[in-house]
């Protein structure tokens, strides 16, 4: 029998090793698997390479992981924000490496890893600082830059519903990086707000097929605002 459900986020992350590459989904708070990030902090792995769109906000979540100096390198598109002070300090003191990637190249490099693509030529970034040193090629009169896939040991993503086979649905713009990160990691851990019986998810509406997911953990639905998305009582 296949049962990918895990009782707790801590058990789902017990085997993250020092030096691992860990993808973390989310754009803003939408799709950010905050329970998994907190569990990664508690788990203690060091020397991590983190792949996320940003580099932490405020003092919690990814910012807290950075503040504890557990991250060696971050691969992201938009590190600098009004409240990215932990990243800013580590970057300025040379304690963290930054690989800055245009957002679409980031998504496609992750997708490429999951799809078994060894690299791809993209027009994005051609002629800019972010393409320096990279192979370029003219294809049908347009210039392209060779970009490599980004693989990971773990992907931590937030979905909405899942079943024991790992099939997932998402909620609105919380989908963002989840589906591509799920494909790109050796071990994908998804939190869901509801674990349902096999067959309960509309097969036409499954966004991430369970083959891309290794572990599913149910977490409570938390209110993300004063209004729209409240705790189910």
């Amino acid at each position: 029998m296949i049962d990918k459900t895990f009782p707790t986020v801590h058990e789902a992350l017990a085997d993250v090793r020092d030096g691992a590459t860990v993808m973390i989904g989310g754009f803003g708070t939408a799709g950010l698997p905050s329970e998994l990030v907190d569990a990664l902090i508690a788990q203690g792995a060091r020397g991590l390479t983190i792949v996320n769109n940003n580099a932490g906000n405020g003092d919690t979540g990814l910012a807290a992981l950075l503040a504890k100096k557990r991250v060696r390198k971050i691969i992201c598109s938009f590190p600098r924000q009004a409240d990215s002070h932990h990243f800013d300090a580590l970057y300025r003191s040379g304690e963290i490496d930054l690989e800055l990637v245009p957002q679409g190249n980031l998504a496609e490099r992750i997708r490429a890893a999951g799809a078994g693509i060894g690299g791809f030529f993209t027009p994005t970034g051609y002629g800019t600082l972010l393409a320096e040193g990279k192979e370029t090629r003219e294809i049908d009169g347009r210039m392209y830059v060779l970009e490599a896939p980004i693989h990971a040991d773990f992907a931590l993503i937030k979905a909405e519903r899942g079943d024991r086979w790992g099939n997932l649905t998402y909620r609105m713009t919380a989908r963002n990086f989840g589906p591509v990160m799920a494909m790109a990691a050796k071990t994908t851990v998804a939190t869901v707000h509801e674990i349902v019986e096999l067959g309960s998810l509309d097969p036409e509406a499954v966004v991430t097929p369970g083959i891309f997911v290794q572990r599913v953990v149910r977490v409570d639905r938390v209110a993300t605002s004063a209004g729209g998305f409240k705790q189910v009582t």
Partner: protein
Amino acid sequence: MARWTRDEMAQRVARDIPDGAVVNLGIGLPTLVANHLPADKEVVLHSENGVIGMGPAPAAGAEDYDLINAGKQPVTLLPGGCFFHHADSFAMMRGGHLDVCVLGAFQVSSTGDLANWHTGAPDAIPAVGGAMDLAIGAKKTFVMMEHTTKEGQSKIVAACTYPLTGIGCVSRIYTELAVLEVTRDGLKLIDKVAGLAFVELQKLTGVPLIH
């Protein structure tokens, strides 16, 4: 000196967006364009975090932080709108499916090179987001920016001194003074604010304009 207000600039951009277009509005000044899309046009808004058919901000108290735009502000979804993951969202740009994007800029060159992501200052922490993907991906890239810097230097230049976002990617420039089209022969004046003489505009512009 005569100049368009920020809302008038947004209105001027909105006028040039055709009925039926799928449009991405960048953060900052371009966001204002959404408020000026005429009701007789059906213009569909795309946001790179994974939504097409974005509606206006929700009423106070109805915000849902699973439904946000690229500026991480809560938005709404119009009937017909849908969600998709990041790789699909950027395929919409890179694949040439998005009709128009409107971006801010530090500088634009007379050949349509764009600089809008990094000042290049040695102590600046760079952040690029989707700027490079949008600039080169959309069928038409409109830039909305002030005509000059606070120090009075033209932001329209022969060659960008700030690090580039994309090469030859800008189609039109909208400032508080004029609308300029990037053509093979240089920047062509399409429109200017009433009461501004061409010679005055030319004086404030770093490259020769085609009248």
